[in-house]
């Protein structure tokens, strides 16, 4: 474990990521946006003693902006991680060292996650403004933080996978955002379209909107970040009211598993020589 934590790639990446002026600039802009918008709303609608405990708008706005920033920043941090090495012509040399592809992928992912986590943690004090209004439970805050962390992990892994799979950084970045768009918006649209279609096609079978209680549709709803975020914020859609499990827990489990699959797949794709398990013996052969 200590070998991994002090592997030269991780150390170099951490140093590059955290010891540059660009890093401070990104952090400053991020906090400015994250703090500026709620502050703007506060200026428009000043805090009043009588509204304490009732006004949830600021919480919704802050969480929405936070999620949007995560969707914007997390893929960008990893979508060029491997393709950038390839374009700089340093990847081949790196692959001839004793660093395994798994170490290379994890080092890149951990570095970007560390930076994403810094952004997340640095912006958490902004929620103290939200807490002034009350009407937000600590449990909701914890679920929101977990939700954002899972999204960072998934979007970071997705970016890393696209970066390994696609040679050019520009195409990898566009593909990452495209796939992320599918997960953020596409799964929600699929949920609504499929439900509505079933209801209209088989009106006698799905009376009184009971199509939304179908387990398959509930699972689809549980994979859509916007529906899950709405549920965490206590603003669920009518169609997703019938979900019988905790959406945030289901969402976290699905996306964490998906992220691990993407990381393992990336490490496999990065291997110059991919082992075909059915054709080779495991023991190395030495000839004289």
């Amino acid at each position, binding site marked *: 474990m200590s070998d991994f934590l002090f592997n*030269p790639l991780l150390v170099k990446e951490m140093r590059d990521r955290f010891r540059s002026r660009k890093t401070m600039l990104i952090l400053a802009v991020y906090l400015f946006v994250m703090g500026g918008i709620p502050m703007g709303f506060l200026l428009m609608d000043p805090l009043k003693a009588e509204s304490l405990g009732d006004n949830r708008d600021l919480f919704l706005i802050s969480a929405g902006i936070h999620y949007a920033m995560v969707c914007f920043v997390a893929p960008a941090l990893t979508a060029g991680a491997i393709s950038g090495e390839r374009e700089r012509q340093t990847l081949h040399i790196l692959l001839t060292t004793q660093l395994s592809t798994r170490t290379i992928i994890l080092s890149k992912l951990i570095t970007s996650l560390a930076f994403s986590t810094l952004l997340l943690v640095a912006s958490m004090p902004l929620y103290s403004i939200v807490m002034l209004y009350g009407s937000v439970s600590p449990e909701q805050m914890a679920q929101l933080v977990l939700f954002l962390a899972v999204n960072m992990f998934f979007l970071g892994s997705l970016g890393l996978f696209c970066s390994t799979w696609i040679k050019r950084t520009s195409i990898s970045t566009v593909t990452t955002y495209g796939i992320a768009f599918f997960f953020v918006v596409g799964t929600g649209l699929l949920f609504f379209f499929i439900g509505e279609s079933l209801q209209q096609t088989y009106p006698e079978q799905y009376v009184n909107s009971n199509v939304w209680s179908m387990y398959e549709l509930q699972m689809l709803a549980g994979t859509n970040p916007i529906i899950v975020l709405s549920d965490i914020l206590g603003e669920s859609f009518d169609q997703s009211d019938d979900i019988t499990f905790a959406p945030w827990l289901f969402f976290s489990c699905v996306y964490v598993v998906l992220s691990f699959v993407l990381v393992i797949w990336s490490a496999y794709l990065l291997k110059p020589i991919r082992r075909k398990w059915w054709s080779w013996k495991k023991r190395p052969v030495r000839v004289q």
Partner: protein
Amino acid sequence: MVIETVHLGKRYGNLQALADLNLSIEPGKVFGFIGPNGAGKSTTMLILSTLLEQSEGEAFVCGYNVRKDPASVRQSVGYMPDFFGVYDNLTAVEYLEFYAGAYKIPASKRRALVGDLLELVNLSHKADAFVDSLSRGMQQRLGLARCLVHDPAVLILDEPASGLDPRARIELREIMKQLREMGKTIIISSHVLPELAELCDDIGVIEKGRLIAYGSVHEVSNRDTGQSRMQLRALRNLDKAGLLLASSPYVHQLTEYMGGYRFYFQGTEQQKAELLQELLDEQVAVVYYGDSKKDLEDVFLAITEGVGME
């Protein structure tokens, strides 16, 4: 054998990039790979460096199968590609320390090792310079030092002299001579053929993915035509030398060249020595009598003539 390939082949779709390559390179030998762009030199080097999987055949480096035991092969090989990038925010020392770490060399030994390597490639004075500020020649030398951080038995150098000015080429060649003296087995490809002739024990000529000539520089030079191009320079009695060469049955196509003569010699090494003795007996003050520097280029052109037209 340090390097051995058995019916090695690589296919990209319908394109056969490498076919039926059989190489055997002994320890401590310098092997030169000659061939035009796209002939299969880099493909072979990538396979031997475990960066590309072959389609057919097997390849072994230091006894390890490149496909079945790539980690052991990587520990035995130092690979320098024809074009490689550098991390722009590292100094020369940090750059080498980074790769030393990547080869799992203990941190306590890295600083001394890096110092030795920088001295070997004459870059001690640039130890604290940022890598991207170094000239192309210096970056190539640093790349060579990077290949050596884990003390590999084999060096695979893909066109190391490409894009270098003459001085940088000479400096690089001198370092490679040092490495040869250190007992490293080196595979080197280059378009600068005379440089290979001077450096290599064996050469292989590859064209359209096939090895069409393989052996010592001398064997390959005499392979097709049975003759070698030679050069003579002398301080005195050059006219006598001209007459003697013209009358020799072994000498053909005698021409004046750079204050001396250049000619094709068809005969054995013994007959070459006898001709030199005759020149000395005629009081010709010989200062150079040997293979012409352009020889390998001629050989390459002769061997590959018509291959690309098939």
